């Protein structure tokens, strides 16, 4: 692409941006810092490998690796790995012909509306953001057919101006606030059916990174999507948990109710913080995705949840309970 065929925005950006050249001192400053870190990374054990007797050193390395692995395993990783082992031997959920697996989710989702959709109503930000609380009940049949019943509640606003704009634009009608919407989906297996997910954790992580996205946040997002699935097979649940265990997680709460649940959080460079709770059989019980810095463009204050949800464990119910 030539300069003159560039988009005017790109051209303008290139024209006004300053680029500085590094000095020799800049180069040396960075080089010294890096070489210090390189020295630390070159562990004494790796030097010994080259010079010591092969058998003796091999034993030392095995011992050292064991010690390092033990020492470097975080509490969150240890708990999730343990849970993965339990999940593998947990009986899969089987839905008999005449029954349904019932789950309930109470969630609040951060919504965004473009100014164009506000029909001329002025807002103080680039777009209108608000939290939409909702309760969703799901009845899932043995072949993935599901009845969904969702009730939408009064939104949570970040300013009175946002609230006034929301109602002036009639968005409460669009969001069907106060109504319960029932629908039937012939196939609600969602992300599970998108592809044949490997049950080997290494292959699974590779597949997610190559198909969905290579950041840890994207790996976690896809993993949690899989965990949310009611009919996820035990071996896949185990693999998903092991993938999650390999992420940089922090244990924030362990078994506060004595029921074997624990919560972990993941800090993303985005910056977002994802906290989720798993029960003793590896089911997702709670999750919350926090926008650490908020989003000033949308008037969203720091610490706002982009998504928060409480899930009940699936239980079998009769068709008579269907709405």
């Amino acid at each position: 692409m030539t300069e003159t065929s560039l988009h005017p925005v790109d051209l303008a950006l290139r024209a006004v941006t300053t680029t500085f050249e590094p000095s020799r001192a800049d180069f040396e400053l960075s080089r010294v810092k890096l070489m210090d870190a390189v020295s630390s990374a070159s562990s004494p054990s790796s030097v010994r490998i080259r010079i010591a007797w092969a058998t003796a050193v091999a034993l030392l390395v095995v011992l050292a690796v064991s010690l390092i692995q033990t020492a470097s395993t975080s509490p969150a990783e240890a708990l999730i790995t343990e849970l993965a082992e339990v999940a593998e031997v947990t009986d899969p959920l089987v839905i008999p012909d005449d029954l349904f697996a019932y789950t309930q989710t109470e969630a609040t989702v951060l919504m965004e509306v473009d100014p164009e959709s506000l029909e001329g109503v002025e807002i103080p930000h680039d777009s209108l953001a608000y939290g939409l609380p909702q309760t969703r009940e799901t009845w899932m049949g043995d072949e993935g057919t599901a009845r969904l019943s969702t009730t939408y509640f009064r939104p949570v606003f970040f300013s009175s101006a946002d609230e006034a704009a929301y109602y002036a634009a009639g968005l409460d009608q669009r969001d069907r606030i106060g109504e319960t919407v029932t629908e039937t989906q012939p196939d609600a297996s969602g992300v599970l059916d998108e592809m044949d997910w490997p049950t080997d954790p290494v292959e699974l992580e590779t597949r997610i990174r190559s198909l969905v996205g290579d950041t840890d946040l994207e790996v976690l997002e896809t993993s949690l999507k899989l965990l949310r699935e009611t009919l996820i097979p035990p071996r896949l649940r185990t693999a998903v948990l092991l993938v999650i265990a390999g992420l940089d997680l922090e244990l924030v709460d362990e078994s506060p109710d004595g029921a074997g649940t624990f919560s972990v959080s993941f800090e993303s460079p985005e910056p977002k913080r994802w906290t989720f709770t798993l029960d003793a059989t590896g089911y997702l019980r709670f999750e919350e995705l926090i926008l650490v810095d908020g989003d000033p463009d949308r008037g969203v204050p720091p610490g706002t949840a982009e998504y928060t949800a409480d899930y009940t464990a699936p239980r079998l119910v009769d068709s008579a309970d269907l709405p």
Partner: protein
Amino acid sequence: MVEPTTPTDAEVIGASLADPTRFGEIFTRHHDAVYRFASRRVGAGEAADITAEVFLRALKGRHRYHLDRPSCLPWLYGIGVNVIGDHLRRVKRRSRIYLKAQEPALSQDDFTTPLVDRVDAESAAPSLNQALGRLGRKDRETLLLFAIDRLTYSEVAQALGVPIGTVGSRIQRARRKIIEQIPDLRQITGHGGTDPEKESRDD
């Protein structure tokens, strides 16, 4: 006699897993590019520290590098986006570009951008930077990697760890929002712009 070939970045990074000193070659190859990348966002005063941090994080995370990607510069830029994001949050500044008006400097772009475009566009610089600041962070970083760092769509996708289609949609959205805020930009730069549908994704 067969000439020795220069190992690719991926080969050097692969070798550095066993011998971390090999990572110094990556530093020597890409230090200047990463410094320039940082200087376009934070200026000369902070670019050296940012550059050092990028290479420290790269060293620490080199085991996660995709060894099927010969050049590691997009990967380093991706780390740079995060390092600068962390830095700006610490000093409570929003991500922008470093304008010519902020400090006199020798610029590479001085020699590649037609003079008439440069002078006219510089008059729009403050509003352009303001418009950039109003973009969502992901859209802004995607556009900057393409427009001022001159990565291709696929390299931007590698840098940010997103699908290539996402890169395209983010760039189009960011450009549209900037044009909405500065409608005169097309006249200022003297170009009608390219048809997004016809624009080559990888130059």
